[in-house]
């Protein structure tokens, strides 16, 4: 069946089954609308924890260093995949990793490796560090968009993912995220945009929750004031 026949068949069916439409009449519905920023942040925190994540409210870069140090020790991290992102620069993440003795890989460093070595290094990384493009208070989600030097892998391959979020990234409701995306223009959509809401999970064995089946087993969100 070619394209024209295919579409013609659908067209005829859509028209001839007209009388079987159900014509629902939805009434208006609201969305999460916090009174102020503090309330939105509190909701975000609650939902991150509900989703099985660990939440850290940090006042400045120094506290982030302590968090990194303890995560790295706890999970015995030796290597990391790191995004290049202004927020990570601002909080001095790259210097901290150097200080803490972690070998880290960003896009630029990866380009210095031959293809096979690069793959192996990515697959072996213990820790992934990303910033976020948005965060959603209502659902506790961190939104990451793929770009050069903001790889999909960073939040996916390692057993531990740390997302560094700033208050300005938080939108109240899922609908607000999509309104923002529309505002930015459809042609600005990246090749991959992912809403992350918790550590990798499965319930496939007797509906019992197991984390880390494919992606990160531990998911940490650090809300850092800039």
């Amino acid at each position: 069946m070619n394209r024209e026949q295919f579409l013609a068949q659908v067209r005829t069916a859509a028209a001839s089954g007209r009388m079987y439409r159900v014509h629902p009449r939805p009434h208006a519905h609201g969305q999460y609308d916090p009174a102020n920023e503090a309330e939105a942040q509190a909701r975000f925190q609650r939902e991150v924890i509900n989703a099985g994540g660990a939440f850290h409210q940090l006042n400045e870069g120094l506290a982030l260093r302590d968090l990194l140090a303890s995560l790295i020790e706890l999970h015995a991290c030796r290597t990391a995949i790191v995004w290049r992102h202004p927020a990570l620069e601002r909080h001095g993440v790259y210097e901290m990793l150097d200080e803490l003795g972690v070998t880290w890989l960003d896009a630029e460093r990866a380009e210095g490796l031959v293809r096979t070595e690069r793959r192996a290094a990515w697959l072996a990384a213990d820790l992934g560090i990303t910033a976020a493009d948005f965060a959603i208070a209502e659902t506790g989600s961190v939104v990451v968009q793929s770009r050069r030097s903001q790889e999909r892998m960073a939040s996916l391959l390692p057993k531990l993912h740390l997302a560094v979020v700033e208050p300005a990234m938080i939108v109240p409701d899922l609908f607000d995220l999509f309104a923002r995306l529309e505002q930015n223009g459809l042609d600005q959509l990246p090749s991959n945009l992912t809403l992350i809401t918790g550590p990798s999970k499965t319930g496939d064995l007797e509906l019992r929750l197991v984390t880390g089946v494919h992606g990160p087993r531990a998911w940490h969100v650090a809300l850092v004031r800039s």
Partner: protein
Amino acid sequence: MPGTDYASSEHHEFLDATTEALANANLQLALANLGDTLGQRNKDAFAALPDADALRERARAIKDATLAELDRHLETLEASVQRLGGQVHFAGDGGDACRIIEEILRSGGARRVVKSKSMTTEEIHLNRALEAAGVEVVETDFGEFIIQVAKQRPSHLVAPALHLRTPEVAQLLSNHAKRSLPADAEQLAAYARETLREKFATADVGITGANFAVAESGTIVLISNEGNARLTVTMPRVHIAIMGIEKVIPKLADLPVFLKVLARAATGQTLSVYTSLVTGPRREGEHDGPEEFHLVLLDNGRSRILAGPLRESLFCIRCGACLNACPVYRNIGGHAYGGVYAGPIGAVLTPLYDGLAENKHLPHASSLCGACQTACPVKIAIPELLVKLRGALHDSPAGDSRIERLAYQVWARAMRSPRLYRLGTWLATRTIGRWTRKTRWLKRLPSGLHGWTAARDFPAPAAERFRDWWAREGKR
């Protein structure tokens, strides 16, 4: 109903399968908690969502309006995907779809394919076709991986290995690993992670379904809790997505409406762990993601359903909530339904896809209690659809037996005539009603009808008719 295949044949597989399922102790244990866990979480999640009903109604409205102009939205989707550098393929049926995908694999010289869970690929038996073509196909969803190792079929829309218990899975995966694995969910999942990572790293092509496709932007939406769908579109060089034509939604702004209700209905989560919007192949300078993107649009009977009275079944977003809510599913599990889709929606879809005559028990595999419709995020009137199918079955040569027909004719006649009705009720109370005055229940109906009483009692008629009681007591 137009176009439905009524080739008459007698099938009692469903009845045999239910009897077996009810006697299968492991299956019964596996199903035992479904209502208290997923079923309850669905109710709690919707109760906690303000204006949940308005959202569900809106999701319905979007589906209804989209289907009315489905061809136009498909053309928009095609243009958007092409603009991004992707290729769109049109598959009239499952055979077409398998051939198209085989051809993409062949032209790229692919040897190994990783797949994330897709009921659409189950529907067209893609794995069988690709394996016959000499390609290694690896299912990567943990449940699907187990099912593939076990050489079985999924038994639930979102939890494909729901019918298996941990010790059985440990046995299966131990055979696969050629070493002994403990009956421990964590360790079995760790084995899957380790085995499948290797496959992801070396696969040439990733195949996914699509939960939604946004026409205006060419965006394919993939939802998973495990992250395997993300890996499938991150590591291999080529991404092929296959979707039923009903999955298209016109606008990006439509998407949050569905996202808000889908995970809540399926598992009670506000969102599943990973919701990915995939918009074309990787861009210049990016280090991961596929270099090539193909979208396969599948009809496979959907336009036939679109033209008919069961059109509403195309609203389904495959969340599995109706299965969890259904007292029949919770007793017999997914395999007894015989088709790719199980549970209440399977009882609608399987006769539509695979023929009503071959699946004539399915429309009756429901007490029409309505729990499915209540749980459904798009409020599909499943009981009503099942009744329509029963009607179609009744009108078809494969329908009721001659005796049933005769019985219904007698019944209809008596119900239309006050005199006959009076006589009938008088006879019933005088005979059966009086004989069973003490027990009030019939434990066994005579042969021919004893199917009714094989597993439950039948309420006996009263010993006195209401009209007689009223004639006496109403005057006082």
